[in-house]
Each structure stands twice: as structure tokens, then as C-alpha cells.
């Protein structure tokens, strides 16, 4: 059984919606129920970071799918994938050779999205793993600035869709994911500058350190006397 393009798109929405719920006030209950597995979800900072990572993961997978459609469109013709008579017609957008690559660099937009979400994921995962690190502030600032840059690119792509006269549901999903990620970085920055960050940390840093030691992330060197 072959799934149509809109059904396949739903799989990308699952982590995005999950992340969005986790980041929202509704996520408190969800975070508590998952906290036995992921302790950090008990705090607002942990839920925001967890939700952000889920949203970015959805953005990454949908961008990879867009690149796949881009390649398939150039392999088999634009009309073979997700063509529709309505306004939502991703093949008319992704398969359009005038608009489907980044100006000057010539990179397919799907690849640009993959690179952007990979960077975002790296920034967010690093912060989630070590929220008290010295580089957290610079990670948040990189996330915010790239987020704003990406929003300008989204405006350009919306203009492209307007010119083509069709909307691409895959691209729109990636755009929504990007906007949520940018908002998430701003929210985290606000928490970092305020008291929420360290409050969250003080309750969990000790637990996190204990957990890390328990997982065996660090092996203390043996004393010379023990070796002999």
C-alpha cells in the first residue's frame, strides 16, 4: 500500500505537535508523566528544550523529505509527486527549476533546511546536556540570530510560492517548524537571563550529575596503589 503525499506528511507533524505541546503550559502533565524516563522534563527549561528538540527533529525530517522529492522530481519529472489540482501542490513548487534552489549557491532548499535544523539540533542538544556550561549564552544567541535569518528566507520562499501560484505543504511544515524553533530560542534566552534557568538547574543539576555518574559517563582514574 502506497501512502499519498499528504498522509506521509502527517509523520513529520507527529514530533512537531508533540514538541509544541511539551513547550506549552499543557505540557506540564505530559512532562511529569515522562519524567520517570527523562528527569529534566520536570522543569520548564527541560520541557522547553525537549519540545524544541522534537520540533527541530520534525523540521529536519520534513526538510530531508523535501530534498528527496526535489531529487525524484528531477529524476522522473515534476508531476510524479504530490501533484494536485488545488492550491496545495508541492511538486509544482519543489519541481520548479526557477525557484527550487537557493540563489547564488544553487543548493536545493531541502538541503538548506537539513543544514539549518542540524545546526539548531546541535545547539539545543548541547544546551540540554549541559545547561550550566559557559557557552550556553552563545549557543542561544547563535540560535536566535540564525532563526531570524531563516525567517527572512521564509519570506522569500512565500514570495516564490506566490509567484508560482501554488503552496507547498512540505515547505510550509518546515517553515512552521523553523518559526517555532526561533520562538523557542527566544524563550530559552529569556529564561536564561531571568531566574527560571538557575531555579530549574538547582533542582536538577545534582540529579543530572548523579545520573551521569550512574550511567558511567566518567570513569575516575585508579590510584597507583590500587593498580599494584
Amino acid at each position, binding site marked *: 500500500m502506497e501512502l499519498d503525499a499528504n498522509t506521509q506528511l502527517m509523520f513529520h507533524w507527529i514530533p512537531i505537535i508533540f514538541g509544541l505541546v511539551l513547550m506549552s503550559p499543557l505540557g506540564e502533565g505530559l512532562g511529569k508523566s515522562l519524567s520517570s524516563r527523562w528527569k529534566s522534563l520536570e522543569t520548564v527549561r527541560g520541557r522547553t528544550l525537549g519540545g524544541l528538540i522534537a520540533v527541530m527533529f520534525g523540521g529536519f525530517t520534513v526538510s530531508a523529505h523535501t530534498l*528527496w522529492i*526535489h531529487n*525524484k522530481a528531477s529524476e522522473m519529472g515534476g*508531476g510524479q509527486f504530490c501533484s494536485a489540482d488545488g492550491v496545495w501542490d508541492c511538486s509544482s513548487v519543489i519541481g520548479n527549476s526557477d525557484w527550487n534552489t537557493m540563489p547564488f549557491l544553487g543548493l536545493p532548499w531541502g538541503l538548506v533546511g537539513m543544514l539549518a535544523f*542540524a545546526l539548531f*539540533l546541535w545547539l539545543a542538544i548541547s544546551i540540554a546536556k549541559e545547561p550550566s556550561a559557559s557557552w550556553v549564552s552563545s549557543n542561544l544567541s547563535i540560535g536566535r540570530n540564525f532563526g531570524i535569518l531563516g525567517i527572512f528566507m521564509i519570506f522569500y520562499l512565500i514570495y516564490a510560492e506566490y509567484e508560482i501560484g501554488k503552496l507547498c505543504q512540505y515547505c510550509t511544515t518546515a517553515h512552521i517548524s523553523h518559526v517555532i524553533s526561533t520562538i523557542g530560542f527566544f524563550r530559552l534566552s529569556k529564561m536564561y537571563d531571568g531566574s527560571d534557568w538557575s531555579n530549574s538547574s538547582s533542582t536538577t*543539576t545534582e540529579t543530572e550529575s548523579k545520573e*551521569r555518574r550512574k550511567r558511567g559517563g566518567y570513569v575516575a582514574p585508579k590510584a597507583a596503589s590500587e593498580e599494584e
Partner: protein
Amino acid sequence: MLRRNICNEAGARSDGLMFVSVLFISAFTYIAITTNPVYTGIGVGDRAPELVGDVWDGSSWTEFDLHKNLDENANLEIPVETYYMIEFMDTNCGYCQQSAEQFLTPEQSKWTGDNPTRSMPENVKVEFLAVSIALHDGTEGWDYGKSEITSFREEYGHTFNYMDDQDNDNRDEWGIPGTPTYFLVSPEGIILYSTPDAEHGYTVWDAMDYEIPTGGEQ
């Protein structure tokens, strides 16, 4: 109170980088294995660029889109494999006039129409398309206009379509170096023969004989 641990800080960054790298490489490998993109161009093996314009079929001017046409033929209940022989020409160019008389007139009866003399399988069809461009618009002695195209077609007794590209939109898109320039396009929209790529002496007619399958009744 937050306590910093330099080792953990470095570890967090490299763990994150490792996770993202694995994710990126896996996605990229999957895409590389399952797709085989063909780039648009006018070389042999490239996907033919867009070719859109008004064509004269002998009685009226109608809109034509090469790729749409190929897709429609492929999606018929009984799919038809249509090969396109495309000639970029100028109605004023001496070589084009010579070619129209010496090659295109005899070759059209061999390949096109209801009873082509060349044997082909039942589901295979060949279409000729002449794209009339303007090499020297505004130069004295070089006349352009739709009437030039219709009278040229009539003069040589051609039965195939002529496209009006005297605004040179398609010529620029294809990057045509001169006239006449010939292309053979497969039913999948891939260029099988291109004059700029061809070895000396190997013509589009040779390529057609080689590339288009034989079979069926003559």
C-alpha cells in the same frame, strides 16, 4: 548554585555533534541511495529544459508544453512513448532552408504521420517540432512574424508543428549556439542527441535510427 565542569561541557558539545552527524549522514545516505537526480541541460543524458510556446499545426495556433505533453502521453490508458525531434531554426537562415528541403521533408514521411515508413512498435510515436527563433531581429533582410513561420512551413510541405519563439525565450533557456540545431528527446524527457554534443558526421537522423526501437508492421 550552578557548578561548572569543563569536561562535561566539552562532552555535551561533542555528544550533540555526534548525534546530529549520525542523523544527517543517515538521511543523506538514504536520499543518495533512493534517488538519481538528472540535471536539466542540453547535453546528452540531461533532462530537456522547458519548451513552451504557441505552435502552428497548419490550421491554428495552440499552446504547447513539451514536458506536459510527454507526461500526458505516458499517463494514457495505453501509454504512448513519444520521441521528439526538435529543430531550432530561423526562417531566414540559408542552412535551415536547405535542411528543410533536403532532410526534413523526406524524414517526416519516414517517421511521422499515420503511416511512417520506418517500422516502430505500436506504442512508439515520433513527433517533429521546429522552433522558429529570431537570430537577427531588426536586421534588414531578416523578416520575422507569425506569417513568416506559416508560409515557411507551407513552402516546404511540412506537416509537423512549428513553434513561434521569435522572442527567443526558449532559445535563451536552451542556450542555442546557432541554427539549425537538432535534439532528440526521449519519452522520459531526456536528451538522446544534441548537435552541440555530437561527433562530426553523426546526425540527428543517425541517432533516430539508432535510438528509436524497430518492430511492428511496416
